[in-house]
């Protein structure tokens, strides 16, 4: 439903209402008035209202790890590095350039000049170091996984030295030069600095509103004032308010922004947990866009004139295999039999959205170290049966877990995907015992506790490095696949660590290619299935939204006409 000019809209509205009833006439005219007050002028002004799927976990990106929080903080704060619009490639953001020492342990960043935080504090090398020291010196509740997830996953330990840390120190030889010292080289650098968690925030505001004052209360923690109502960055939008009772977050354009200023004057996020409700809100014109529309709705949304933009896939869905309880699965031939049994081409065509593709390895080809010549597993039931017979388990029995009450960007239809795969396995004589559980109602628990022989899971990349995918999956032997049960589990973890620590990029990519080949021919700890492109939808009046494979869209370029 496109929005007519408010005057005309009001007239047609009234005509319709005449048949509805007197009480509603009053309501209608008011609704129409409210409608006409929304935003003023198009292009350089107005309001962009986005339907968020969940409430943010505070507004301090350092203490957050979920997409809904980052969607908001990404508009407010910026990192030393950013990502090129529409890709996962690193580009300068608050740092104009950088270089690293030959051993990969010292990183020198030349900073952009004349940048100020929203509270007027200067952005300079000293501010950079204060930020990193603040992250490194977390204590108590601040070291909780639920808070500092990205720091722990990417940098490891803190300044108390309990666990080894990738971070060593930071120095500011002059206002425009920040030097970060690492304890070892890491392939993650500088990409991780583009993660929202490591973005730069005003040291003044963090001190004033006690950003580190996460209070452990009982078994949990309470976010400090800074995180709840004073996030201060350098980004194109400034934080205004969060109305918890009404579920709305309000940001306004930063008029002193160093780059190209935001097109809209106001950016509003409305928290709408129910997907159907988000769709209706878009149809009624109350919101201008929302993320991850249901794959089944894409056609209807397009037919109604909305813009459905499909991102490049930057994720992986795999069939997980746990070697712990079923010794047969420790035999490579059995795992290969599973791979040959699956008809992944048909799965992608029948159960996944447009633009999805079969995965030949554990990450998409846009990521470094992708090997074009890995061993392939085309659908070949005869070969599968033969391998099972050779392994001495022609009548293999497996428990196969799939999640209910959830869709993930990489897994839009768990039940349909399970049905297709289970059918393929039965075809080669494997007995499949299905177990379905709600995502938070036992599924993840059981998978993590190795109760599932086979399970469906996946991953959306945070940034463009192999380590973010395969390092996360297999970097230790204590993982969901229980690779520690096989002699190669430790070997694989060691190789991943060695590759991650290799400062020479060409050599590093070579190492990752080798790992990918081995993963697909010698190890096969799980079976890569597919890459699915997640969609984002906006109304026909929205222009300038540049999608990102990392789902890291900035809304500064967005304009809304017809307001």
């Amino acid at each position, binding site marked *: 439903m496109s929005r007519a000019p408010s005057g005309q809209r009001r007239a047609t509205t009234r005509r319709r209402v005449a048949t509805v009833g007197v009480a509603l006439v009053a309501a209608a005219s008011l609704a129409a008035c409210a409608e006409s007050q929304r935003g003023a002028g198009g292009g350089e002004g107005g309001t962009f209202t986005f339907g968020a799927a969940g409430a943010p976990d505070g507004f301090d990106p350092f203490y957050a790890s979920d997409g809904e929080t980052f969607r908001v903080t990404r508009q407010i704060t910026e990192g030393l590095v950013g990502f090129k619009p529409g890709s996962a490639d690193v580009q300068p953001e608050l740092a104009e350039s950088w270089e690293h020492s030959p051993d990969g342990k010292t990183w020198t960043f030349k900073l952009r000049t004349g940048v100020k935080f929203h509270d007027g504090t200067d952005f300079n090398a000293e501010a950079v170091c204060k930020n990193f020291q603040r992250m490194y010196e977390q204590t108590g509740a601040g070291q909780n996984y*639920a808070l500092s997830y990205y720091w722990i996953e990417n940098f490891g330990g803190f300044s108390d030295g309990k666990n080894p840390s990738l971070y060593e120190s930071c120095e500011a030889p002059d206002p425009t030069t920040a030097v970060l010292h690492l304890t070892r080289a890491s392939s993650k650098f500088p990409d991780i600095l583009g993660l929202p968690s490591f973005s730069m925030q005003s040291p003044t505001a963090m001190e004033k509103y006690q950003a580190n004052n996460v209070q452990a209360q009982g078994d949990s923690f309470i976010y400090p004032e800074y995180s709840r109502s004073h996030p201060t960055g350098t980004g194109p939008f400034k934080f205004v308010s969060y109305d918890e009772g*009404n579920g709305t977050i309000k940001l306004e354009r930063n008029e002193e922004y160093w780059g190209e200023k935001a097109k809209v004057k106001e950016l509003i996020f409305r928290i709408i947990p129910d997907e159907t409700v988000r769709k209706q809100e878009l149809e009624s014109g109350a919101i201008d866009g929302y993320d991850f529309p249901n794959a089944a709705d894409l056609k209807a949304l397009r037919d109604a004139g909305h813009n459905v933009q499909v991102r490049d896939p930057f994720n992986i869905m795999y069939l997980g295999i746990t070697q712990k309880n079923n010794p047969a699965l420790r035999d490579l031939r059995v795992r290969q039999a599973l791979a040959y049994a699956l008809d992944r081409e048909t799965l992608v065509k029948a159960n996944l959205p447009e633009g999805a593709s079969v995965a030949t390895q554990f990450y998409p080809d846009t990521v470094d170290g992708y090997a074009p010549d890995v061993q392939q597993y085309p659908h070949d039931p005869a070969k599968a049966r033969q391998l099972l017979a050779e392994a001495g388990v022609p009548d293999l029995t497996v428990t196969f877990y799939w999640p209910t009450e959830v869709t993930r960007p990489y897994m839009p239809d768990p039940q349909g995907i399970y049905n297709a795969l289970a059918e393929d396995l039965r075809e080669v004589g494997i007995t499949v015992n299905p177990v379905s559980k709600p995502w938070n109602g036992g599924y993840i628990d059981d998978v993590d506790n190795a109760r599932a022989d086979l399970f469906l899971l996946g991953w959306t990349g945070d940034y463009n490095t192999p380590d973010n995918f395969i390092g996360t999956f297999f970097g230790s032997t204590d993982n969901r696949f229980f690779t520690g049960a096989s002699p190669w589990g430790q070997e694989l973890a060691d190789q991943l660590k060695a590759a991650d620590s290799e400062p020479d990029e060409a050599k590093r990519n070579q190492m990752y290619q080798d790992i990918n080949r081995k993963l697909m021919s010698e190890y096969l700890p799980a079976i890569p299935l597919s890459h699915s492109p997640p969609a984002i939808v906006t109304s026909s009046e929205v222009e300038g939204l540049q999608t990102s494979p990392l789902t890291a869209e900035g809304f500064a370029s967005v304009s809304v006409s017809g307001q």
Partner: protein
Amino acid sequence: MLRYTVRRLAQMVLVVFVLSLLLFAWLRSLPGGPVSALLGDRATPEARAQLEADLGLDQPIFVQYWRFLERAVTGDFGVSTGVQRGTPALEVFLTRFPATLELSVLALLLAVAVGIPLGYLAARKRGSWLDNLSITWSLVGVAVPVFFLAFLLKFVFAVQLGVLPASGRQDAGLDATRITGFYILDGLMTREWDAAWNSFVHLVLPAIALSTIPFAVIFRITRAAVLDVMDEDYVRTARAKGLTSMVIRRRHILHNAMLPVVTTIGLQTGALLAGAVLTERVFNIAGIGQAVALGFERKDFPVLQVVILASAMVYVLVNLLVDLSYALIDPRLRTR
């Protein structure tokens, strides 16, 4: 009367205590937990173990419960892990409760305002077209699920006709002042008339949807009670005494027919809270109904505990008030 009230309040404390114990154990016996919800597909066994320890979920259940009690006594009911992460659970409840109360009260007022007069009229004109139509309407009200009706109302009036807001409590652009969290009241108190009106307009559809079941029940009870009373000897006596029909209706029929109706209204609070869960979902109202739904989805134990216990207290309190008002209406009960 006072002793009776005190005794009832003591009972209430006991009920809430027993309920807290059962609720605590039941929530933790469900599969899954907050750790899966917090970490999801990013969970590693190591992260999971650390987080379980941080949240104290690795302790024996009675130790967990004892800690919960120790803190609850000081007013600390834990911190939300999923609904509104990092916010004290009690604060989550207090922020959201006004939304649900505002909606429920409006729905109940609507149900009473329509149900009682209609029930009375239907009884007085038994067998007429009005009577039959009202009965049919009330049957439909009970039969059609709240969820479906809410959806239908929203689709017609908000999505298709666009005459009423589709969801939420207030337009985000209004910048209204918040005092009590009851948006209509806040608007009236601060004289921000447009904000008050805007909140009211947002409540129209959800209140209609939520009022259907209480309306149907109140209507039918009123109708039955009036029919009963109309045949009583004292009404006939009153007529014989030559009292005006006005006096008879007001003093004899309505007054006596109201007893079961008041009880019914009290009993509707439970139905309203249950209906609010669905209504709030469809109309995206950040109330306690939505908190319960999200709490279960994300296994947010602290929020579920506070919301369910507080709702139980509200329910018990309302029933106490109903019993006390009973005594006011019916003098025979006061001496007991």
